[in-house]
């Protein structure tokens, strides 16, 4: 197993390399002279030239790439054009809220959607199932931001149950922390839940039609044992796969959710950096998000081995 994990880790390297190359050249093709942006509002031509030299922008592209890659390997993502702070620091500052939001959403969505999907499959074609499927189809079509505003309007503005905006670090107490995450997690999680509930139902339906479930029923096993052990364990691989695919969805959703709920996480940093054309920050963020996604895929792949004894490495 360890050997497999190591091998898979190495296999992610080319992917990350492609991302890095892409990110580097993406920014090189950007319109406007980064040096001019850095130099400021009414910088002279000389000042711009000076900045360009300082940043090494006057050197050949390949040399720039080599320097940039070397810095990258040392964990140096450069300096933000606008705030003059190291990109790593900006990202580190924003990591906690985003991690908290995605993890809580992941947790809540999986904890709710999987049972919902199981029940829907169990009660296939009954009212419960139709409600669940209706929710799944709608949830998948609902734009996150529209849902978010509706949630804010009722839960925060009308009924004053939860905060309108913001993020309370866990260091400021557990309840404020949880409170600040509820609405964003729901808004962010609905699409994700719809996806997971749907795949759980489909996957369970397929499994429930299998001969071994008939066997389990012929043994007179209790319903929960049949559903949750015999069926769900077999349905787990596609469910886990979709949970993994959905992480990408979450990351995209985080960008919007954090904007709506004013959460100082990586998503808002992304929007700000992109709109301000703060290229080093954009580069760093793409790398971090891509890294996260690759890592998640890795974890998912490895989890298969625990879920299905037929998979061998």
């Amino acid at each position, binding site marked *: 197993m360890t050997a497999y994990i190591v091998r898979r880790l190495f296999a992610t390297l080319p992917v990350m390399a492609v991302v890095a190359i892409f990110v580097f050249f993406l920014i090189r093709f950007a319109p406007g002279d980064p040096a001019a942006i850095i130099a400021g509002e009414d910088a002279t031509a000389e000042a711009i030239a000076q900045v360009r030299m300082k940043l090494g922008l006057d050197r050949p592209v390949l040399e720039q790439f080599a320097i940039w890659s070397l810095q990258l390997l040392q964990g140096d993502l450069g300096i933000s054009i606008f705030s003059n702070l190291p990109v790593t620091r900006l990202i580190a500052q924003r990591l906690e809220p985003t991690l908290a939001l995605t993890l809580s959403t992941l947790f809540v969505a999986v904890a709710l959607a999987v049972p919902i999907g199981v029940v829907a499959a169990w009660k*296939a*074609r*009954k009212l419960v199932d139709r409600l669940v499927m209706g929710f799944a189809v709608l949830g998948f079509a609902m734009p996150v931001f529209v849902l978010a505003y509706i949630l804010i309007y009722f839960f925060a503005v009308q009924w004053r149950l939860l905060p309108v905006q913001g993020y309370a670090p866990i260091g400021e107490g557990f309840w404020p922390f949880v409170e600040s995450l509820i609405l964003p997690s729901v808004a962010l999680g609905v699409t994700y839940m719809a996806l997971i509930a749907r795949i759980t139902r489909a996957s369970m339906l397929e499994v429930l039609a*299998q*001969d*071994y479930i*008939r*066997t*389990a*029923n*012929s*043994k*007179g*096993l*209790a319903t929960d*044992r049949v559903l949750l*052990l*015999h069926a769900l*364990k*077999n349905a787990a691989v596609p469910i886990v796969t979709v949970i993994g695919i959905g992480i990408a969805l979450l990351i995209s959703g985080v960008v919007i959710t954090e904007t709506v709920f004013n959460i100082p996480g990586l998503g808002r940093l992304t929007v700000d950096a992109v709109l301000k054309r703060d290229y080093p920050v954009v580069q760093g963020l793409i790398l971090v998000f891509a890294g996260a996604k690759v890592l998640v895929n890795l974890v998912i792949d490895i989890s298969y081995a625990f*879920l*299905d*004894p*037929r998979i061998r490495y």
Partner: protein
Amino acid sequence: MSGAPGPILEVRDLHTQFSTLDGVVRAVDGVSFDVARGETLGIVGESGCGKSVTAMSILRLIPRETGRIASGSIKFEGEELTSLSEEEMKRLRGHRISMIFQEPMTSLNPVLTVGTQIAENVVRHLGVSWKQGRERAFEMLDLVRIADSRRRLDEYPHQLSGGMRQRVMIAMALSCDPQVLIADEPTTALDVTIQAQILDLMIELKEKTGTAIVLITHDLGVVAETTERVVVMYAGRKVEQAPVEALFEEPLHPYTRGLMRAIPRLDVEADAAGTRPRLQEIPGLVPILTQPIVGCAFAPRCSFATDRCRNERPPLVDAGAGHLVACWEVDRVRRAA
């Protein structure tokens, strides 16, 4: 356990139906039979004749969203199964009536160990601890003659051969000493030598435990070797019933005769899919079960058919010595023999 005499299982006028987009399918259309204690009863017929549905109906395993037992009675030890609650039914399944299936490849759960799958049955019904359950599983594996049984307990189905898996299925089904074992095509998917071994094993265990067996098959060869009494089904109806010797000596229904002619010889090789050729040699098509069938269901394919056959449903009549047949033209058939 009531020691009352009489059949352990009585099926009376069973109707099982499925609703589909094309209408209601009458999969079992008024079937009755008894199973005596310790007896081996064969149910034969082509695929789609309703024999599997009959078996599933007894255990009430018909999928609720599409199918239901429309009418009829199933009595187990004098107790009416159709009126039991689902919970009571669950207590019965795998415990007093158990079942094994056609596909040993797919009938075992691929993600649970063999030991778990046997032990959970024992734990569920006999109220023993998991440790004792595992011990019982180990005994059962020994009983069905799986070598190295201790180690096998912790293996997954994909690590076993087809024959071994069917042995595991049998071990599982018998683990709670059931009164009735329903075996739905238990050997069809296996190759010939294994088939014989499994059948021998079943008979041997039956002798040992006194379990009655309902053996469902399309294979008259298997019926001849294994069973004591035979029910022949066609299009959801019982068309003939007889002690096994009587049936093979003088089949009275034209359909049974057709089946006899189509018996695959044991030396015929199984095809690529692992199954031997089925009984498609009788000309014509199985009737459409969504349409009400007027008259004899076999009439369209029957060389003896008359207008009466096509218009009036033949009743089951006793042709002597417990040999029942539903055919207007029994006499002609007899003469044709």
